[in-house]
């Protein structure tokens, strides 16, 4: 067996992206070791979400290579990438309206469901078993998240914060190998943020590699193993939390600007 640290979970090399002449991502390169938490930080408009869109190929990059556990995914369709286990949650929650909370979570298991549709229709026992397992797991996750009581409500009836949480659970349902979260703490209060920090730690300990965009610095400093700082599309710094805390470029580009 290979030591898991040999192949990075995510390896990005020289990614560029322009939007009609404006360079949104400029030569981004970094890698994420398996089983770690990497935080992606930067001021508003730095290109963090864009970088996520490029990794999941919702937008095609202009150049550069992206590898997921050693496999090149730069040219792969979004659904193929997800099927490999690279799952994301969006900055503004994209739950499925018109579906119940439970169905939303169960939808996360899509990449794991292997019984073909026609056997579901013929009510084969394999299909029924699979469906039962998915539902049981979904209910379990909802229970952990404290949303079990809402499981039969329309997901779009949940308040915004709960929708974001729901989206994270849905992503976990997919048993991701690499999970991308875009500002999971936005809109949460202090206790909820603390809970989230504990949850992120637990997810990592469960063997899921995490790449998290986050503005909340205390959360980032507490949970991240590595921090990547982005400013106006450029990678300004990469390092451990303590290195980043003392990095002048970062203080100027990010913290300094936000304060002033």
């Amino acid at each position, binding site marked *: 067996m290979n030591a898991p640290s040999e192949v990075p979970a995510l390896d990005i090399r020289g990614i560029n992206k322009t939007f009609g002449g404006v360079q949104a991502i400029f030569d981004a390169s970094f890698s994420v070791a398996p089983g770690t938490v990497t935080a992606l930080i930067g001021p508003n408009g730095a290109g963090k979400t864009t970088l996520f869109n490029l990794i999941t190929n919702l937008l095609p990059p202009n150049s550069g290579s992206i590898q997921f556990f050693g496999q090149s995914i730069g040219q792969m369709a979004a*659904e193929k990438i997800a099927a490999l286990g690279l799952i994301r949650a*969006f900055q503004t929650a*994209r739950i*499925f309206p*018109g*579906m119940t909370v439970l169905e939303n979570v169960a939808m996360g298991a899509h*990449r794991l469901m292997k019984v073909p*549709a026609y056997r579901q229709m013929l009510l084969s026992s394999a*299909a029924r078993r699979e469906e039962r397992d998915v539902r049981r797991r979904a209910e379990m996750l909802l229970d952990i998240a404290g949303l079990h009581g809402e499981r039969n409500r329309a997901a779009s*009836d949940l308040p915004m914060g709960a929708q974001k949480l729901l989206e994270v659970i849905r992503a976990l349902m997919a048993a991701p190998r690499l999970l991308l979260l875009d500002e999971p703490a936005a809109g949460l209060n202090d206790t909820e943020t603390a809970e989230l920090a504990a949850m992120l730690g637990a997810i990592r300990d469960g063997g899921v590699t995490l790449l998290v965009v986050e503005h909340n610095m205390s959360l980032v400093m507490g949970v991240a193993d590595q921090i990547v700082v982005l400013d106006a599309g450029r990678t300004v710094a990469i390092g451990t939390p303590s290195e980043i805390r003392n990095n002048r470029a970062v203080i100027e580009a990010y913290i300094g600007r936000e304060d002033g």
Partner: protein
Amino acid sequence: MHQAIQIAVGGLLQGCIFGLLALGFSLIYRVTAAVNLAQGAFCIFAALVTSSCEQAFGMPVMIAGLVGVAATAALSALLGAAVFVPGLARLPGSTMFILTVGLLTILQGASLVVWGSQSYTLTTFSGERPISLLGISIPTQGLWLIGVTIVITSALALLLARTRMGRAFRACAENPLAANLMGIGVRRMQLLSFVLAAVIGGIAGIVIGPITSFQFDTGGMYTMFGFIAAVIGGIGSPLGAVVGGLCLGLATQFAAAYMSSLFSNALALSLLLVILIWRPSGIFSSGPARRQDVRDEPRIHRAVIRLGLRRGLLLSAVAAAGLLGALPWGLQSGGLMSSVVITAILFLAVIGLDVLMGFAGQVSLGQGGFMAIGGYTASILAVRYDVPPLVGTLAGIALSLVCALILGIGAMRLRGLYLAIATLAFGLLVDSLTVGLENLTGGPSGLVGIPSFSLGGFVFDTPLRNFYLIAAILVVILTVLTAGMRGGFGRALLAVRADPLAAAALGVDVRRYKIGAFCICAALGSLAGSLYGFYFHFLSPEMVGTPISFQMLAMLVIGGEGTLFGPLCGVALITLLPTIFQPLAQYKTMGSGLLLILCALYLPSGIFGTAITWLMRMRPERGGVLAVRRSTP
């Protein structure tokens, strides 16, 4: 050469009309991003009013025309304010499309009630004698037409480019929210564009009136061709609309002259399909690119209704019992029994539509086309080659699946309503083929002598036997589909409908699921078509034509989309009521249009969904199995 020029002139005139109609489509699309399929009906309405003013009040045609235009403006303002604009505010794009189908239906139905089914024509504006230019004869009315087209096109171009109103229109199209913030009354602009488009259509109808004949349902045809012209030119672009209209006019006239008039439509539609696949945004594309990661359809307005499998089975038992209960009646009068069988057959086809629309969120305007393929394939094989009905039915399904795959793979690359457009073209193409291929299909007068369905020597030759056959098929299909829709497959379809991008980010191959749903839809349509032929022993193009496609959409929306069982309510209401109460038959079209609009606007989950919601409210303790909540727009 001379002949060719003469044909070109004809094509030009035809093209002017298509162009004017396309202009209306483009205008509305620019401002509201919706397609208004009622466009052609306003055209005919104006012409009909003009004709009445001429004949009943003896007005000169010009004055009568002014009255016609004014009436069109008033009617469109009313319908726009009461239906179209409120719909825009709360309906998703696909339902909006259906809403305008409702407008088209109601206008045609009302015209039928007022003007009957005979055809009309208008007096020419300036004499009957054509003028002759270098040996080419042009009716003077044609000159009027060309003049009016030039004036309207330039006026509209000026309006859009130079005036404040034009800028406001553009702002509404690009970003309604920002436009609202800037103090532009978006709703007023939407209404204005709707009325303006109707008026343009009305003028077109009055000018073309003297050189053609028209009746209550001619508007449907004008809608199709105007829409096709707009798509060819690139919907949203006024210049494209006129160019698209001219291309279409020339192409159909030349095809009619040099091939066969029956195939001129087929050619136009093939042209459309080629353009859709080759250059989906039309020859003159317009419209800004949108951010991919931003939802482009935030308006979802539908209750979440879930039935457990056991309840689903229970309901299908109830539905079956209900149909069986209708039997004693039916046995008394042959007519009613026949209607019950028709209801069951159409139900089958509408279930297919429900999988596509209610679950995958795609609109098909071509379900009648698949019924035709299934019907004619099985019937022709049985009549001409003695192929057993079952084999013929399966062959029809296979052929339908091939068509669905080709259409689906072509159209699903594209976003938005392209499947709707492609299926409309497909349905019309099949229409023109069933009419045109007389040797094979019997042409407009239909195919006779189709045997009854038989299975291993047992012949289903009475309405009652047919009823049992179809009821059995329905039970099987409903059971299978309920299982599929409740499981991972249906869930993925719902997710694709709700948010294709988020679904893809979870590993759903969006295209494959849409095509899968489309194939189910096509197969059920085809099956229904085959059964239709075997039941009636007769099949004619109008039994399975595009108007039937529209009617089935109405049935679906009225019954309740996304419910599988709901369509039965819609089908029964529209098919059975007019049979039971004969005097209603005259109002059938208008009534179904009205119901369609009311349901689309006020009962987003249809009669069935609303009834279930209501029943479950009364027994809240059972809420665990079934979730009923209104989702906020």
